[in-house]
């Protein structure tokens, strides 16, 4: 299934450390490495995100940095860059050396001055400026005039000719053809990405370039050009840290790579003999704690209850392009994938919260997309991933949060008075409902009148679940149910979902970034990659299989598991 991959499996070479004999031979260089990171660790409020990370980077070397979302890549780069958030949360452990000197930047400007350039995933360009103007921004070529003598440097004028030339030469260095005069607002995304990189290399003395998923927005041919440019820059002596989820690119472009998982370097190796599958396995690995023995009880499911055909959803950052799947009655169906690949868009699209198209049949009847009422009326409920944004009325009491959807969509918890002239909230029934759920879900609160914003994340999540349960849904979408809540609460929430499925036979579609979570409670797991279904696997499938699908290294869409 993966003919395109290098099939050589290399043995476990262990972790390459600076003391490792093969370390200096990586590119045949023996001088002091440009960047050396020793035992770096970081904890946010007692939550450890980085643990004893050590590696080094030689001059002109390209290092691939891979890891799942939340593996600690961003934190590592934030430390390197001296982002204020690191210092505000108590600094970091370990040492970083640049050119043999220990560094600890207190803000990103110092990092820039020291010759570290960074290209972020989000474009930080000024749309109304041309490519050249963006490239030399804040370092513009200036011209002196008479007024400068009198009033000082602030009255210098721009030397537009030179700005254009500097911009053009920086672009040429990358080996791409972009008009230096073109406005950024008129550029395709690929050109924007190149403009950002050009800006970093135009700075005199840039020694180290950090590229954070630069190819995510590029087409294949553009990505190929970018990789080519990277090698060209490396040949000029600039070292590059390349962060990407596309493992094949890492293997193609980098000299070495390291894999981070749960804040630790789990693998460090040269790319000559690397294999996508092996890296994927290292990345996904085995999570601590969450996993538990699955109860295999020979689950039987009814007919297909929800069928989606060629669904597309225009949800910013989570675009769904073409997704088809079907879920059977009583099943817990998992949707996984890396952030930004579109897994969250599916539930939001079917629930009508973002523009969507395609066909969605629920119990044989079509759901009108773009209209939240249609799905709600059909008996579908949704626990949003955006708990505070969509899931809760933060300033209102718990009981109103729980009863709201049932009250609005099903006219429950209402009572008539004045001979049916006035219909209003049945506060007693709402209290009763709230009490019931506070008890059954063990929601920790003062009473049902407490405002939702005063509760902890886990308890807020339980309120969201209670709100969805209160409408007695036939099908329940749950998105990222355990995001941002602590480990104990995670288990409670997952148990609640499972229990609801077992007791009421509710079909559940759960979307999550955490693979182990999906594997622990789902009956089948679909992996979404670049807005499409990369494959549907049983939870018992090998982690490596999931890892491969996550990274889009292979398409196994035909591997639908029949049961």
């Amino acid at each position, binding site marked *: 299934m993966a003919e395109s991959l290098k099939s050589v499996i290399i043995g476990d070479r262990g972790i390459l450390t600076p003391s490792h004999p093969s370390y200096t031979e990586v590119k045949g260089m023996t001088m002091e490495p440009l960047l050396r990171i020793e035992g770096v660790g970081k904890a946010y409020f007692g939550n450890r995100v980085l643990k004893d990370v050590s590696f080094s980077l030689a001059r002109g070397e390209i290092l691939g940095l891979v890891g799942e979302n939340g593996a600690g890549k961003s934190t590592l780069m934030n430390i390197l860059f001296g982002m204020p958030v690191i210092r505000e949360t108590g600094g970091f452990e370990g040492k970083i050396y640049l050119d043999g000197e220990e560094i600890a930047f207190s803000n990103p400007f110092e990092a820039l001055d020291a010759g570290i350039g960074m290209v972020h995933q989000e474009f930080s360009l000024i749309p109304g400026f041309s490519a050249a103007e963006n490239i030399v921004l804040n370092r513009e070529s200036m011209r002196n005039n008479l007024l400068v003598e009198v009033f000082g440097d602030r009255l210098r004028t721009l030397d537009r000719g030179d700005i254009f030339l500097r911009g053009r030469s920086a672009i040429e260095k990358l080996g791409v053809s972009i008009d230096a005069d073109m406005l950024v607002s008129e550029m395709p995304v690929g050109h924007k990405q190149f403009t950002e990189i050009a800006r970093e290399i135009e700075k005199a003395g840039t020694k180290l370039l950090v590229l954070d998923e630069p190819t995510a927005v590029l087409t294949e041919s553009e990505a190929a050009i970018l990789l080519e440019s990277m090698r060209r820059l490396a040949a000029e002596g600039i070292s590059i840290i390349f962060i990407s989820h596309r493992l094949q690119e890492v293997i193609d472009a980098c000299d070495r790579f390291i894999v981070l998982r749960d804040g630790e370097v789990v693998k460090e190796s040269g790319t000559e003999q690397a294999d996508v599958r092996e890296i994927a396995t290292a990345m996904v690995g085995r999570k601590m704690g969450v996993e538990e023995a699955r109860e295999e009880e020979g689950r039987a499911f009814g007919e297909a209850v929800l069928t989606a055909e060629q669904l597309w959803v225009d949800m910013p950052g989570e675009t769904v392009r073409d997704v088809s799947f079907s879920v059977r009655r009583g099943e817990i169906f998992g949707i996984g994938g890396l952030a930004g690949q579109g897994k969250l868009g599916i539930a939001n699209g079917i*629930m009508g*919260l973002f523009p969507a198209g395609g066909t969605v049949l629920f119990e044989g009847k079509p759901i009108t997309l773009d209209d*939240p*009422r249609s799905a*709600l*009326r059909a008996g579908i409920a*949704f626990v*949003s991933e*955006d708990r505070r*944004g*969509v*899931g*809760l*009325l*933060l*300033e*209102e009491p718990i009981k*109103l949060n729980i009863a*709201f*959807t049932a*009250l*609005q*969509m099903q*006219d429950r918890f*209402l009572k008539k008075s004045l001979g049916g002239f*006035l*219909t*209003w*909230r049945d506060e007693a029934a709402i209290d009763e409902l709230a009490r019931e759920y506070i008890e059954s879900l063990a929601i920790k609160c003062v009473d049902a009148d407490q405002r939702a914003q005063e509760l902890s994340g886990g308890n807020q999540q339980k309120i969201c679940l209670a709100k969805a349960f209160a409408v007695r849904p036939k099908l329940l979408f749950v998105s990222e149910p355990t995001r941002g809540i602590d480990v104990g609460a995670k288990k409670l929430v997952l148990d609640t979902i499972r229990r609801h499925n077992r007791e009421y036979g509710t079909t559940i579609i759960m979307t999550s970034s955490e693979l182990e979570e999906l594997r622990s409670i789902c009956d089948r797991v679909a992996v979404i990659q670049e807005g499409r279904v990369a494959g549907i696997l049983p939870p018992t499938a090998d982690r490596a299989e999931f890892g491969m699908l996550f990274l889009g290294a292979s398409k196994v869409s035909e591997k639908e598991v029949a049961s």
Partner: protein
Amino acid sequence: MQKLRALIHHVGWPRVIIAVFLLCLFVAAPFVRVRLDASIGDTLVRFGMNGVLVLAMVPMVQSGCGLNFGLPLGIIAGLLGAVTSLELNLTGFAGFVAAIAIAVPFGLLFGWGYGRLLNKVKGGEMMIATYVGFSSVAFMCMMWLLLPYRNPTMVWGYAGKGLRTTISVQEYWGGVLSDFFGIRFSDFLSVPTGMLLFFGLMCLLVWAFFHTKTGTAMTAVGTNPDFARASGIDIDRMRTISVMMSTVLGAVGIIVYEQSFGFIQLYMGPFFMAFPSVAAILIGGASVHKATLTNVLIGTFLFQGILTMTPSVINSMLQTDMSEVIRIIVSNGMILYALTRVARVNSK
């Protein structure tokens, strides 16, 4: 001490400061020979007169449309009701009820259009609302001249047509509410029982509305539109309903105001009417997206209390007639103060 601090925090510093200031004015009044009973009487009357107009802020704030700076539009609906009732020569309660009955359909109609407009400018409601108010006043300046009202007490004497700027309702339904069960304590202090009861009734209706299904949905739209949409609520419809309610309450409010004041003020009369109401509800502790009836009651009382007391007390202190100047300084100063509170809430 701890309790006191908690109480102050709960009530909010602005209200504590203003309440203390108001209390000082009441204490100081007898010393500068301002009659205390007259002061209390005036404050109660102004509280009742303006109450419903302040209440007209609540539905729009609750649905997330911001403060109703377009209140003049509702007031115009009320004015149409009032002059039509006069044209029909209706007096007493019948005249008052007829004025409201005629004003409400106008209010619903205007509110519907106004609501539709506000749905197109989400995020900039308050700015647009201000101009809706201003331009509707300007338009009506023409219409008051052109509308075919003929009642001699209302039209310009020399032309026999075109409504006058100030029309007395004394002969028709002036004071029908204020004098209803009015209690006279002295020549200077009489409690406008009927008017206060009517204000109470209006508050009760609004309170009841916010406990119905639609009212609950409206609150949700204002608190978190995304939540409301995910629960299948038509946001634009809720917003339109809230604007219609606010406009109708504005219409009813001005009729209550007129029957107590004794005059209908046309032309530029409604122009600045929105600002005192906005200031009152903000002083009462409302934010741009959350207002309760408590905010209305406290805010109206404090604002109107200060507005009644400051000019008379300070006037007597200075021994000159500056009451109008002081009134303008105080009322606009309070509006300014209240609006800085808005900025505070926004930037929190």
